[in-house]
């Protein structure tokens, strides 16, 4: 019996293949976008985990310099002599290859940490050999084929673009002879040793990084991607829900007949679940494949963004993980059950004699619209409360969710109200019918319109945020990157030689020296800056005391970035805890894109506090027309490596490139979500088209041609889409405000001024409204080509 029942249920799809295609497309698109985003996140998190576990960072304490300066080898020898089981590590970035180089001493490293001598890879002898050896990730090996490096050995244990070698080799490659970045302490330290703060008071013990700082830093980035994936998933489920609702209603008569023929209700429900499970499996498999393609296409951009924004190295190639595939399939099943839940519940409670009422299905009662509107109002009220009193990232995302859900729920009620007003005022019978009939169509189309609203609003919202950010960021870069050339030297000696030559040839040399450390309890960087008009004229201050630059020059105050001020509640005049001593906050400056805390003090004070800090970076002021020639001459004269002298334009282009790449992903997801919403609209129109015949046939009989009726159908959808767009614009702006003033502040620690871009809305209207018209075109064409006999049948009462 099961086979017969299942075959009967499935036969519906054979007769209506388009419904099947729409259902599968809806579900697989929903799965693809969601699982694609999850695959990207999983890949990135796996890279962070690799980085966190690298060299036992997540297991062993480390010793770092209290003032951020390098540790010298004598200090290491001293600790070893005192019996402390410490092992030296040097870390640095090699501009020529883009590699993060890590040098270790395999002989003193805690057991099992160094990826050598474990029987699988190279042995210690190879590692210490004169030619040396660098361990890298297999992906990285391919990228470094032409680089001038020691022999490479590929190992899966390392994150991308990171190489490990013997400390002496890496110090040489980095141009940091004798330099140690930090010391790893073996947890098996014997008892009774002289305490560390007595032997090495200049060093501080740091606990292992649980889970990795990168994972924490990038959380908000991944949360943004997840939010988009979730939005697309919900929009996709709208399609599935619309199709399933109609299919169940159309099959109500079949189910009644099956029951009359002796199939128990429970059996029917079980077979329906089985049928939906089979369809979900097919849609899920397609969604997984599509999701993999989406993820693979977006991952290089995401990896580029993460590298640019956070310095996080994420593999640009996607690994197919079985867990991800299973999760995506489970999600599709769950999505299908969610979309079909109401229909299944109704079927399970359906009396055997219940008649089929597909038209009633499409015509939800006014009371239901009102109920939905009230629920929507409730969500919007919740959004307002969260906007006023909420704080933190969960509240910010709660605000976004409440705003979107509330607006979506209230939309059909608003549209029905507006259309009803038109209906009341329309002159002429056709116009009157058009508006009255449109009002009747709203409930049937409400799910599709809600999906369209979400897609359009997120387009307006995210577009406004990105465009505001672009405007602000470009202006900010012009202010912050005031020097015409930026010089990076390999050693203080090289710096001194270059500066002797270059100083008479430029208007000013601005040292950019920094140390890393805790700023008011947050990890960050402290910079020393010269007292120069470049800063006084250009530095982007958000708030400051009146004579801030004079106070700074006298060493009386510090400037802090917005991130530090917001996260630790600092205002101008408050005291900030800095390495080497506290200072009052003289001003707060914007520092877009920087995830870390940052502070500035005057150069003289910086030098006094950190005499050992490396003097390796400088800004050079000179007439812009002379910058390129000077850069070339300086590079050639001192044989500086590529990237040692960077023109301002290059840094700006790089920064803007990172920016554009970051939002390229957002743009792609935006377009895909709009595409899914269009499919939702198309699905609803197509499923409703058939039920429209009894409503259109009388008009045809009264003398309206099929062509005219078809044109009216398209016009109706265009009108509804335009009305939805009108609602989407203020909603999108509210969304943009929430992103700019709440999500960004909570996630990144800075706020940017929001601007309006009406031209973008116009462009969106020019895209969305014709697209909606195109979605309506096929059902309209079908109507136009419908043989008169099909319309005559309506009058012959042959439709159930």
């Amino acid at each position, binding site marked *: *019996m099961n086979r*017969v*029942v299942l075959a*009967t249920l499935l*036969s*519906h799809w*054979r*007769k*209506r293949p388009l419904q099947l295609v729409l259902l599968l497309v809806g579900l697989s698109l929903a799965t693809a976008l969601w699982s694609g985003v999850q695959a990207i996140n999983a890949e990135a998190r796996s890279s962070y985990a690799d980085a966190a576990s690298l060299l036992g960072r997540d297991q062993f304490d480390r010793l770092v310099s209290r003032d951020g300066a390098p540790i010298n080898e004598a200090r290491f020898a001293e600790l070893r002599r005192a019996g402390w089981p410490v092992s030296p590590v040097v870390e640095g970035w090699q501009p020529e290859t883009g590699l993060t180089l890590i040098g270790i001493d395999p002989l003193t490293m805690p057991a099992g940490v160094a990826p050598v001598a474990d029987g699988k890879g190279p042995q210690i002898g190879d590692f210490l050999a004169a030619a040396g050896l660098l361990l890298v990730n297999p992906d990285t090996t391919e990228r470094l084929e032409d680089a001038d490096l020691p022999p490479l050995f590929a190992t899966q244990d390392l994150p991308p673009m990171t190489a490990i070698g013997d400390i002496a080799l890496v110090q040489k490659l980095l141009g940091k002879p004798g330099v140690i970045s930090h010391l790893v302490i073996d947890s098996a330290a014997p008892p009774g040793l002289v305490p560390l703060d007595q032997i090495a008071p200049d060093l501080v013990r740091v606990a292992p990084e649980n889970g990795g700082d990168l994972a924490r830093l990038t959380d908000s980035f991944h949360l943004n991607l997840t939010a988009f994936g979730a939005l697309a998933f919900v929009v996709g489920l709208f399609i599935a829900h619309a199709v399933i609702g109609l299919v169940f209603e159309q099959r109500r*008569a*079949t189910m*009644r*007949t*099956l*029951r*009359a*023929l*002796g*199939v*128990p*209700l*429970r*059996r029917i429900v079980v077979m329906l679940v089985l049928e939906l499970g089979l369809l979900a499996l097919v849609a899920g498999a397609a969604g997984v494949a599509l999701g993999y393609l989406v993820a693979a296409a977006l991952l290089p951009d995401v990896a580029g963004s993460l590298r640019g924004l956070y310095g996080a190295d994420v593999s640009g190639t996607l690994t197919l993980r079985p867990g991800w595939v299973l999760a995506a399939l489970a999600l599709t099943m769950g999505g299908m059950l969610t979309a079909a839940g109401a229909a299944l519940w109704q079927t399970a409670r359906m009396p*055997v*004699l219940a008649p089929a009422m597909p038209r009633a299905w499409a015509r939800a009662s006014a009371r239901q619209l009102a109920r939905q509107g009230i629920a929507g109002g409730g969500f919007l009220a919740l959004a307002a409360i969260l906007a006023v009193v909420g704080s933190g990232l969960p509240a910010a995302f709660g605000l976004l969710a409440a705003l979107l859900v509330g607006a979506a729920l209230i939309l059909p009620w608003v549209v029905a109200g507006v259309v009803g007003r038109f209906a009341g005022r329309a002159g002429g019978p056709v116009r009157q019918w058009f508006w009255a009939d449109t009002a009747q169509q709203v409930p049937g189309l409400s799910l599709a319109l809600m999906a369209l609203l979400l897609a359009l609003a997120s387009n307006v919202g995210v577009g406004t945020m990105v465009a505001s950010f672009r405007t602000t960021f470009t202006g900010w870069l012009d202010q912050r990157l005031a020097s015409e050339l930026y010089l990076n030297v390999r050693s203080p000696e090289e710096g001194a030689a270059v500066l002797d030559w270059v100083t008479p040839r430029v208007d000013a040399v601005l040292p950019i020296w920094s140390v890393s450390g805790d700023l008011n309890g947050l990890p960050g960087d402290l910079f020393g800056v010269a007292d120069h008009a470049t800063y006084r004229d250009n530095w982007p201050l958000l708030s400051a005391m009146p004579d801030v630059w004079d106070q700074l020059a006298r060493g009386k105050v510090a400037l802090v970035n917005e991130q530090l001020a917001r996260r630790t509640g600092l205002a101008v005049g408050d005291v900030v805890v800095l390495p080497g001593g506290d200072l009052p906050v003289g001003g707060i400056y914007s520092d877009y894109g920087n995830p870390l805390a940052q502070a500035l003090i005057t150069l003289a004070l910086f030098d006094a506090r950190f005499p050992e800090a490396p003097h390796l970076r400088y800004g050079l002021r000179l007439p812009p027309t002379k910058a390129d020639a000077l850069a070339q001459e300086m590079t050639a004269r001192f044989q500086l490596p590529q990237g040692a002298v960077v023109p301002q334009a290059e840094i700006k282009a790089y920064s803007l490139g990172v920016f554009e790449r970051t939002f390229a992903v957002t743009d792609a997801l935006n377009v895909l979500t709009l595409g899914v919403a269009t499919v939702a609209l198309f699905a609803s129109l197509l499923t409703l088209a058939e039920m429209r015949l009894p409503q259109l046939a009388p008009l045809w009989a009264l003398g309206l041609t099929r062509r005219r009726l078809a044109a009216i159908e398209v016009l109706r959808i265009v009108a509804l889409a335009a009305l939805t767009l009108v609602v989407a614009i203020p909603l999108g702006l509210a969304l943009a405000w929430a992103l700019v003033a709440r999500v960004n502040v909570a996630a990144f620690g800075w706020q940017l001024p929001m601007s309006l871009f009406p031209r973008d809305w116009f462009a969106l209207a020019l895209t969305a409204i014709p697209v909606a018209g195109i979605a309506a075109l096929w059902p309209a064409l079908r109507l136009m080509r419908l043989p008169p006999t099909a319309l005559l049948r309506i009058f012959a009462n*042959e439709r*159930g």
Partner: protein
Amino acid sequence: MLLTIRGLTKTYPTREGPLAVLRGVDLDLERGESLALVGESGSGKSTLLHLSAGLDVADQGTIRLDGAAVAEMTDSQRAALRRDRIGLVFQQFNLIPSLNAGANISMQARLAGRNAPDWNAHLAKALGLGDLLQRYPEELSGGQQQRVAIARALAARPALVLADEPTGNLDEANADAVLALMLGLVAEAGAGLLLVTHSPRQAARLGRQMRLVMGQSQA
């Protein structure tokens, strides 16, 4: 006795209060016997048929099919009863739109696990459907659809055929032809037939008649 009904009562709630549709109806039907249920609209004919098929449950009274009390059965048992022992013909045909005529005819027999292609073919031929088996319901006329519904009801060789105005949608000539075929095939299958009709002429062609007036039976 194939079907025994005693003191059957059914009331439906309405806005104006409870509406008694059946008020203590008694009925007996032997195997091989045919009975026409006649009466005005709203007299309870269809309700009596639905209760007999176990599609609905009576408020009071008993229905026994081959001695088994329908009211005491669970939903699943009533479903099994319909599947195995009853053939139903509805006024609105109730064919499955996504299956062709052939699949619709064999549907119940397959559900009951006793599909007999030869018998189906015989029914189709006898009902003039031989050339229409590949057609879908929407491609058939009303009379053709009704003949498919009759064939489906008889394909599983049920003990009892319950038909609710099976010719109500047909013109007189077609209605007569369909009824004649149905009576012949019911007799051939050895089933009992309980048929609701408004037409005295058709009722007269059945073995017996029972009139329902305001939910009560009159001989």
